[in-house]
């Protein structure tokens, strides 16, 4: 097992997005509302929080651990880094001191994600197989 992760997130890295279970539709797919940027309380950052599997694994954390850290109202959606970049997103590692593997996702040009762009993310996201 590697002892560190590359700064650039590898294309095949699984990227997790925590979402409220209430926002998962009856067919098991997420609503577009799950994929909005969030402004930090001090206003210094504005992006969509994600978690990178390679860092989680390095820290010995599983998807179930991630879900448990958020609570039973939440589930975990999965993409690959390649999925997100193909949709025009930029990814970077952003450790917060909380759950390991925290990262950020934002439009590559820095713009706010449109509804259609959220919809495209909703179409490629899947509820993590460990939870479905």
């Amino acid at each position, binding site marked *: 097992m590697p002892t560190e992760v590359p700064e650039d997130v590898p294309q095949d890295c699984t990227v997790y997005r925590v979402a409220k279970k*209430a*926002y998962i*539709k009856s*067919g098991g797919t997420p*609503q*577009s*509302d*799950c*994929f*909005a*940027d*969030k*402004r930090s309380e001090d206003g210094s950052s504005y992006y*969509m929080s994600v978690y990178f599997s390679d860092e989680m694994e390095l820290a010995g954390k599983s998807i179930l651990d991630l879900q448990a850290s958020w609570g039973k109202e939440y589930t975990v959606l999965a993409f690959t880094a390649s999925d997100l970049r193909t949709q025009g997103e930029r990814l970077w590692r952003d450790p917060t001191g909380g759950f390991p593997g925290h990262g950020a996702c934002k439009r590559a040009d820095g713009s*706010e*994600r*449109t*509804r*259609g762009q*959220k*919809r*495209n993310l909703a*179409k490629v996201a899947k509820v993590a197989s460990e939870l479905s």
Partner: protein
Amino acid sequence: MTLFAGSERTAQNSTDAAIASADGSRTLPRQIRISRPGPDASVSTILSDGQRPPAWVERLVLEEIPARDDRGLIKLDALVRFARVCSVLPSRTPKPYYGVGDDATIGVEWDLGRFHLEIQVGNDPAVDAIVYEVDEGEPEELPLEGNVGILTFLMSRIVNS
């Protein structure tokens, strides 16, 4: 939360909204009233004569969207614009999936057979949008402003197909 019917009373200490007809007659103007305490206290919108919003609009605006806005992101103006848009949908429109995004937007979406339709209304009207998709194809995105008629037309075609 208080529901008014044909009333012009001042807002109470919570979100107040009503979609009401003074006596239920189709010939009288229907009214949307959404109000909150504070500087932006009250808004009224008179709908067009004969307009019959889907039955779920009232509860969605009054209770369900505010309940999902657990961070208090959505401004009154956005809630009013959202109510107005929903109110022009055909009365047979089924209840959508709904939510509030972290970017202070209200979203609703429908999966209706081959068709997928979404509406987004945000605090910033520039992000208001319609998304339309057929057979899981590429989403078509339009600004909501100037295209409400298209939204009504699309939904009418879908619910009547």
